[in-house]
């Protein structure tokens, strides 16, 4: 493939030397322009999943800025700028405008974003038309005639090759992986520490600047702009059709597709006259229906497939993205939970020494002064100081890289924290309202460092909402949240994630179309990546860590399977693994056992216990499986109707009449107490 590309490039380079006429070069230049626009469109439409119906607006803006600066007609900015600064300034203005508009429109998802961009396109065109003093209005602007088509061709060739190379490299970098994560599950990506807004607006802005650059070049070559030819929907349509034909969300797709489309049109155009436009419509429908992965899909059976984008990817409809939808918990009988066997006293007691060990491990980690996570898991052998649970004694690797997350806001007080058990996470007086409904009503909650806390309550009592408040998915109406003593009430979700709070979700959020290993590699500590790392590829240490964690979670053999093919329980494990990849201080587990078969529940329990004791990771878990909570947690918080009803050791809480009444209704308190909860 590389040889083919090189041969092709060589052919393109020598084309003018082989006696190609100006008109051939002109044709090739127009084709290169359409390739560039399609490649840029694909950055947002294909990789990030934001399907832009107004992308041609950046082409028009670039063209107009260039034309205004170079115009022979007098205007406020003077006349007759040389081409290079005029075109570059055009690209810059396009990029800045894209950043500005992207910040507003990229809040929208799915078709709403598409339509908003279409509206932006038309509005900008009409503004240009109406703003006659600067833009020449409907009359348009003329530029000096241009002569050297060969030079022009080379300039465009170099730019297009540069652009495709850049995109190829971007796609393989963490940046590209993050964009795909945004497409697959934006909220999930945000929760795992990816600064989704910044990244998607950045790539949107880059695409705008790049398309603006080619717009400026086009204006210079065309020597004339008016609103209808500079802002034409056809450029967006061609970009979309070229990308779809070639393969959405691939690097080669838009290039192949645009070239094929151009060639196809020349062929159709010669023979079909007006029918070619009808044929184009038929072609679009056929490609969408029968060739959803495009030309590239015919060659490539695997890789970063976009099948899921077509199945269910881009819409909210199939994604449990909004916190409000999560509030509705699946119907489940509380009686079912209470009918499981009670926590045995022995288990309860056994937790206490374990807690001690966890603290000891924590202290070890801190006193080692290891402020950065171990870069190589293998290089730092684990020192499991844990008693019991022999079956887990061989997981030293992950444990070694474990509780070293000391870059938190309270970093300076790390010593204190481990000694006195300063809360890892504390919420004070949290209030959350949805319209007239107060879902969380002044709850105080605290999770100590390395502690395992359960959060239970009847359906609709506000557990998941409280989770959303703590992880900053939902804005809170009153109260505050702090992490290791530092206030995080106002931070964006990805900032919270970067400070060491990971979570899993009631409705599992894995990137279904990516492999298990890719899922893990995307769940890194994004704040440690830095700009260079963002553009770099996944390093060996991260991969080793991901593989080790997968082994630990019994997912090793599945590492190359798409996550969408895993069973429900396996996906739970994968989510837990993803949560652990960023070396968190605290993991919020939202119903880790829902829909998981009982045998696997036991495994999950053991793994969580091991992680807690060997890495000192604190857990706060929402659970309906009371047995599970009772086995794992030293402390349980009970919510009812948005208020904290009770708090304490599991056994004590279960016998609290108020709790029993909340679960079973008034008047059944005694019976409930008699029955082991």
């Amino acid at each position: 493939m590389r040889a083919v590309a090189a041969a092709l490039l060589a052919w393109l380079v020598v084309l003018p030397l082989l006696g190609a006429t100006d008109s051939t070069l002109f044709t090739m230049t127009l084709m290169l322009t359409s390739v560039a626009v399609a490649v840029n469109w694909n950055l947002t439409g294909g990789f990030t999943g934001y399907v832009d119906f107004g992308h041609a607006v950046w082409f028009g803006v670039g063209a107009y800025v260039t034309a205004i600066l170079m115009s022979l007609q007098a205007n406020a900015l003077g006349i007759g700028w040389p081409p290079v600064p005029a075109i570059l300034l055009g690209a810059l203005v396009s990029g800045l405008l894209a950043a500005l508009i992207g910040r507003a429109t990229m809040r929208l998802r799915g078709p709403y974003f598409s339509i908003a961009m279409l509206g932006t396109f038309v509005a900008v065109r009409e503004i240009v038309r109406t703003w006659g003093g600067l833009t020449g209005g409907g009359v348009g602007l003329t530029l000096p005639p241009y002569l050297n088509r060969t030079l022009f061709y080379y300039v465009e060739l170099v730019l297009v090759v540069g652009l495709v190379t850049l995109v190829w490299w971007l796609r393989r970098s963490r940046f590209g992986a993050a964009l795909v994560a945004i497409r697959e599950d934006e909220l999930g990506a945000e929760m795992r520490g990816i600064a989704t807004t910044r990244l998607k607006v950045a790539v949107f802005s880059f695409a705008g600047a790049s398309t603006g650059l080619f717009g400026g070049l086009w204006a210079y070559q065309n020597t004339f702009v008016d609103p209808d030819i500079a802002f034409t929907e056809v450029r967006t349509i061609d970009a979309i059709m070229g990308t779809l034909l070639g393969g959405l969300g691939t690097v080669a797709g838009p290039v192949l597709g645009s070239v094929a489309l151009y060639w196809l049109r020349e062929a159709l155009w010669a023979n079909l006259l007006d029918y070619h436009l009808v044929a184009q419509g038929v072609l679009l429908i056929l490609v969408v229906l029968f060739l959803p992965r495009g030309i590239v899909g015919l060659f490539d059976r695997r890789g970063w497939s976009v099948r899921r984008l077509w199945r269910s990817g881009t819409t909210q409809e199939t994604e449990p993205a909004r916190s409000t939808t999560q509030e509705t918990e699946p119907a489940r009988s509380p009686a079912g939970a209470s009918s499981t066997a009670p926590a045995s006293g022995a288990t309860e007691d056994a937790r206490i020494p374990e807690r001690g060990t966890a603290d000891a491990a924590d202290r070890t980690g801190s006193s080692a002064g290891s402020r950065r996570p171990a870069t190589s898991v293998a290089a730092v052998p684990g020192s499991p100081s844990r008693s019991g649970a022999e079956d887990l004694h061989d997981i030293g690797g992950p444990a070694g890289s474990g509780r070293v997350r000391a870059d938190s806001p309270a970093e300076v007080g790390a010593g204190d924290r481990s000694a006195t058990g300063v809360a890892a996470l504390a919420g004070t007086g949290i209030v959350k309202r949805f319209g007239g409904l107060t879902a969380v009503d002044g709850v105080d909650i605290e999770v100590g460092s390395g502690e395992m806390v359960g959060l239970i309550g009847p359906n609709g009592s506000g557990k998941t909402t409280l989770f959303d408040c703590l992880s900053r998915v939902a804005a809170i109406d009153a109260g505050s949240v702090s992490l290791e003593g530092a206030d995080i009430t106002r931070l964006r979700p990805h900032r919270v994630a970067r400070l060491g709070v990971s979570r899993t979700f009631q409705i599992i959020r894995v990137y279904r179309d990516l492999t298990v290993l890719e899922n893990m590699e995307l769940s890194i500590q994004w704040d440690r990546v830095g700009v260079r790392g963002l553009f770099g590829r996944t390093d060996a240490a991260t991969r080793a860590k991901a593989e080790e964690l997968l082994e630990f979670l019994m997912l090793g053999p599945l590492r190359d399977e798409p996550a969408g093919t895993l069973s429900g329980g396996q996906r739970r494990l994968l989510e837990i693994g993803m949560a652990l990849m960023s070396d968190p201080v605290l993991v919020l587990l939202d119903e880790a056992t829902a829909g998981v078969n009982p045998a696997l529940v036991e495994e999950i329990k053991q793994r969580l216990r091991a992680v807690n004791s060997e890495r000192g990771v604190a857990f706060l878990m929402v659970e309906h499986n009371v047995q599970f909570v009772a086995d794992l947690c030293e402390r349980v918080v009970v919510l009812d109707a948005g208020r904290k009803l009770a708090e304490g050791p599991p056994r004590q809480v279960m016998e609290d009449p108020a709790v029993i009444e909340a679960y079973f209704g008034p008047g059944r308190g005694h019976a409930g107490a008699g029955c082991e909860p």
Partner: protein
Amino acid sequence: MLWVLLLAWLPSAVACSSDSGDPANSDGPETVSGEFAGTIRLGAALSETGRYSVEGRDSRQGYDTWLRWVNEMYGGIRVGDRRYRAEIVYYDDESDADTAGNLTQRLIDDDRVDFLLGPYSSGLTTGTSAIAEANNVLMVEGNGTSDTMFERGFQNLFLVATIASDYTRSGIEALAAAGARSAVIAHEDTSFATAVAQGAVRHLEAQGIEVLAVETYPKDIQDTSAIMTKFRDLGPDLFVGGGHYNDAVLFVNSAKELGFEPDGMLITVGPSNPKLVAELGADVDGVLGPTQWEPSMEYAGPYFGSAADYAGYYESLWGEPPVYQAASATAAALALHLAIEAAGTVGTDAVRAALRGLSADTFYGPISFDDRGVNVSKPMGMVQVQDGEILVVAPQAAATASLRYPLGDGSGGAGPGRGSSGLGQLPQAIVNGIALGGMYAVLVLGFSVIWGVMGVINFAHGEFVMVGAYLAWLGNDVWGIDPFVSVPLVFVVMTAFGYGVQRLLVDRVIDRPHLVSLLVMFGVAIILQNAMKLIFSADFRRSSTALDGSWRITEGLTVPVTKFWILVVALGVLGGLSLLLSRSRLGKGIRAAAQNREAARIVGIDVSKVYLIVFALCIGITGAAGALVSPVLAVQPFQGPPLTLKAFAITAMAGLGSIRGALGGAMVLGLVEAGLAIYVEGVGTNLAVVASFVILVAALVLRPQGLFGGLRPVDATAA
């Protein structure tokens, strides 16, 4: 591998098409070619397809008229003692600027043409002439008249027609002489129409006529009542306006509707076209318009004889009388021909000098070029529709009838409301807005319900309106059925059509994401637009109804009758659908399916059937709405996309699938557009067009759940 194949094939495909796209070679008169010393090759990119396909064909027939004449009748181009056969290489530029430029380069490089003839339209001539200039090839043209082209200092571009800014000159001079003292101007904001209007302002002021207002409006405008309301209240002697054939229809209709009766109406495009008289009948009587050329003009020259002789020859070749675009094309080729003969060579510099020095009388009028390359010796003609006939009334040299002025009682458009502004126009703005809102409500309904219930964004919505409108127009044109009568018939036909589209396409993509159905419907839109254009051409059509005219409530307030009845029917349809949704079992099923597809399936609702009914019903309503508005909105293949965008805007503002919302959103948009158009000076109508998109984006970003509630909340923003 495919890379190489595709790219390698491209230049060969290019080469192939340059052979196949050259019918002129085979059309040439082979019988006499033996006598010629050689061939002089000309080239032109012309629009055989796309927006300008009709005018492109006329231009080509004009060039070919000269070609046939010069080779068969005249005996070839005489260069010195030798005769050369003329040849023209044509390409179809698809009415697209990039394509035209590319093809012009191809004509120069690959076909090695000696000279270029112009394409049709100012837009295409601007780009192609720059390429001609850069390659030092002469281009002579007759159908690109915008002034800006000739402000570039080009050496190689020559125009035989009258330049845009002089279009109204002879007409204004004649009207000033007849006593006109004040005028208003409305023009399309395109390059050509703006140049015409700027010229008109200059000529009016030169003649001492006061210009009371200048209004611009966007291309493809569908409603000029706001502009005409403003003008009515200014009470000018003259109305000067135009840009497109359809605008002429709108101006005449809305002036009548609103009771705006100036002493003279000078419309820049349309009056010289017999179609306008056929379409508007007596309403267009007295309207003036410029013309480059008419067969009845008193021009003559040694080539082709008189204008009438030329028209006879043209008709013998093509079976139809020549329009001025064809005559201009013939004249351009003729001017080039004469310059080559005068130069005695095909060398560019010599022929350019000969063009500069040319002074000839022709069937087209006198031709001589100034420094810019513009023919300044031929004045523009002016026609007036008099008792259904199009007669030349100016300039004197070419006139066949005398100017009728003033029209009507000679009082001008001045009513008591003369000069009124501000609140005085509020009632009319509200009436216009409600009328517009009623139309939008019935037009948007189907879109909103399909999206709300099925989650399908019907990107072909405007095209279903268009197909329904064509059906009504066809019934009106062929059988004389009033569009208000054909509404139920169109509903039945379009419901069947919707059923077919749902079964064939939508059903396959309903469970896939929005993007898929969006793109499929987009493909349907492209197919419908171009299929209708192939069947009916891109001409603007309009149904006529018995329910027309207007009710004059007071001097400053009129109610358009057609729009009133549209509003009544719209409210009936909205009410009926609302009852169906809220009261019937089907309605409950629809609402259940809208809220949760899976849950509805589980409780035994046949969701597929619900979708089938909803889609077919909505397409039926949408098509019927198209039929309903066919007397008001021009029927043409490309009327759909702006309607689809308005439907988006209204739905985004109103909330999905909400019938009350659709009505409310449509009324808000109608009132905002009417208010902006009336209250903002100059560019109000342009702003009204932008308004819907500003509302669209603002509504999506600020209030994604809609203003009026809906079948389900719009889940538009990411958390």
